[in-house]
């Protein structure tokens, strides 16, 4: 390696939904683009440029983060969970069923991020009030549902 050129890429090892990947990434690659482009995991989507919409949300070592606000290199050694991990043995989880029963999705674009936000909320606060639910998902923009049915779906999932 030349000593006059700074290193701009590196190897990372990251586990996504229990599968380990080793890839070369550029220093400036965002995690969301790494997931979508390098790993072809299109269940993680992009909704904005400024980290305001939450569409790209994933769990990073169990913690809800916006994958557009993280560099791929920061995920080296991490365990990332996407919406694909919610279903078990191909069966939708109770939370996902609740979203369907309560019509908490229309176009479905915000849904992967919203489900992970809801999962994260319920893991921390198993019996949230309506106010806690609304605050728990306020980082996820939805333009279709008006949030009404999303709140109801989370309430129903918490209740069961």
């Amino acid at each position, binding site marked *: 390696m030349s000593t006059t050129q700074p290193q701009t890429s590196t190897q990372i090892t990251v586990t996504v939904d229990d599968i380990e990947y080793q890839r070369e990434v550029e220093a400036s690659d965002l995690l969301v683009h790494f997931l979508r482009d390098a790993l072809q995991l*299109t269940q993680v989507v992009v*909704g904005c440029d400024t980290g305001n919409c939450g569409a790209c949300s994933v769990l990073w070592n169990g913690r809800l983060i916006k994958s557009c606000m993280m560099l791929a290199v920061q995920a080296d050694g991490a365990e990332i969970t996407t919406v694909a991990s919610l279903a078990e043995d191909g069966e*939708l989880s109770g939370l996902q069923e609740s979203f369907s029963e309560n*019509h908490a999705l229309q*176009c*479905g674009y*915000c*849904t992967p991020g919203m489900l992970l936000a809801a999962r994260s909320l319920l893991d921390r606060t198993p019996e949230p009030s309506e106010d806690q639910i609304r*605050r728990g998902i306020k980082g996820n923009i939805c333009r279709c549902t*008006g949030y009404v049915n999303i709140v109801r779906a989370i309430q129903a999932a918490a209740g069961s």
Partner: protein
Amino acid sequence: MSQTTGIDVAEQQEWKGQSTDRKEDGRLLRGEGRFADDWNRPGQLYVHLVRSPYGHARVRSVDVSEAEELSGVVTLTGSEVREQTDPFQQLAPPPGGEMRDYCLAGDRVRFMGEPVVAVAAPTRRLARDAAELVRVDYEPLEAVTTAEGTVADGAPLLHEEVGTNVAWQRTFDWGDIDGALEHADHVVSIDRLHFHRFSSTPLEASAALVEYDEGGGWTLHCNNQMPQFAVMFMAPALRTTTARFRYVTKDIGGGFGIKITSYPYLTILCLLARKARRPIKWTEWRSEHIMGSAHGNERTFLDVRVPVLDDGTILGFDVRALDDVGAYTRYEPLGGVIWSQVTPGCYRFRNIRVDYSTVVTNKTPAGPNRGYSRMQHLWFIERVVDIVAHELGFDPVELRKQNYIQPDEFPYETPNGCVYDSGDYPRMLDLALEMVGHDDWRRRREEARGSGKLIGIGIGTTLDSGANNFGQAQLINPHLPYSGNGEMANARMDLFGEVVLTLGTAPQGQSHETTAAQVAADILGVAPDEVFVRTGQDTGRGVYTGFSGTYASQFAVTGLGAVQGAAEALKADLVAVAAALLEVSEEDVVLADGAAHSKTDPEKSMALGELVGVVHTNNTALPDDLEVTLNRNYLYRPPLSAPDTESAFGNLTLTYAAQLHVCVLEVDEETGQVEILDYVAVDDCGRRINPMVVEGQVHGAAALGIGAVLNESLVYDEDGQLLSTNFLDYKAVTSVDVPDIRMTDIESPSPFSPSGAKGMGEGGGTPLHTVTAALQDVSAQRHGALVTDTHNPAETVHRLLRTEGKPGLQVTSN
């Protein structure tokens, strides 16, 4: 009731009207939706656009040589565009029709964000880096950013070839407004009302993957929501036929009308795909979407005069409207007549004059944002009614009920010949007031006075006119060859007897797969789960007509009308085959439980799978003279006629859904901060195919409306710089901004639609009417200053409470 022990058709479960599970959910909940950025092809080039940083500027030179030195980079400039394409067709007659609109700027840029050069490269990063190397020399020009400014003497001229910033104008005059103003007991005059600029900003931005092949033309995997509208502009521009474009949409992450006018971007991609001979992939950034896709229409209402009788009868209104459509007319000036689908709103006004101008400014071009053109007008009407109530001392509830079109007057012909099919507005108002607990809130409003918080109660009535008559375009320009409306669907039986539906629509969350299956299931005697509905629109399937797409609150009428027709045609085929094979008459055959049965002889029945096999794979058993395909297209056309272009008279929409909302809000007197305490909605969209889907649409429209009135505004400075270009500054509402919305429905079936359903979905901007009425109620507890704008953040409300003398209002009485 059947006389025999055979199948009792009356007992068959009807799927229409039930809140069945959504077919779309299985894939979307798993993150397995196919959205436009998910498409990839080997060897694809990624596109990054060089966009104007100025609101208005001359382009002195464009130099792409440095960018092109990078390996694999291909560029497209405005001068190449002008060699290879013709300007996009214009809907307006001259002078507006002279406008020359291309997919890339030429010697002038007219809005911040206008694309100037397209750069394609083997990686996203390289495309961005190469774009940085493109040298564009701009000479800034004076910008004009208001409607009143752009029509004033000395305003900068945007389009030399048009010669004016008024792209289109027409004065609509029905009844006798001058007589009404003269004979009225009171005239309420309002200087100015303003409907602000905002957008539904779908969470998924525009995106496309475009491929070109010399023999077949272009394939566009994209998320445009009205591909047939797009192709009618793209094909002539690209100097070819419409058949050479195949649009493929699968899942679309929201559209709301904003993804209708993306055809200039698709044209750029088509040119690049042909130039580079590689697949071309483009995905809009959020900031590009906000500044470069489309904005809602911004409309200013001036010199409003309203004649009123002593008993509260409002005779009509006179108004001058300036509709600011940004720098280019694309879907415009259709907005100039579309409001007239609802000329008197929900009211019995008979004397109406509107001097309407479509004007251009140095802002993003307008697109048909959810509620398009009707909601601007309906807000204006509700403001008028509300202000009349306050100024002349009428109860806002009683004044509305008195002036509403009454339930026994339907079908009701408006002053310009539109026919409202059915409705019951007084009942909706009563239901809303009861649901919200009106008396209780009125008491609490009084109790709150002096506490530092003021409570306001507001009513908003709206219409969601659905299934446009595109003959309305002839009221803009009599030479436009458009009228009526239509949608196509295909219903067929696959080889082992599965029902397959193909739609001409391009849904973005409206549950078309689900409701289409419900309609077909009822007709074919199967369960919706047994109906396979293909996702999205693919013009390669050949199931579309000129109006295909998903827009304008019409699917329940046009789309499902097409599904109904196709399923009925398929049923006729199945019945003919069954009759032949079972050796009964066609009248004796009923389809139920996935089989064909004889009504009179229960022993005679055949499963659909077996029946279908006799046509597809085992057809010697079929009588020679029986011609069936089990593959049936149907083109639904709503019963509409071309309007009279001289008098602007005629029916412009087939169905009229209605919504009525009541809002209770609390204002902090010191800060102007608004908090919604209670919000209820009553919906009437005729016969509901799937009540759960309808409610979801009501919620969604309400949230966007609440967002617009309290949070969301696209703000420009005087140089044409858009100040709100991302979700940090453009405050798209979140779960803490939108209250719970309680709602109920009534059903006034439409006598005109195939199933009695009315199109719905856009929502008519109801919260804008409702919340501004609630703020007016708050203002009345202070100095009564008029709420004149649709956008009311805290600073505006703060000022409202402190403005004395009711500026902009005059009331004259005889």
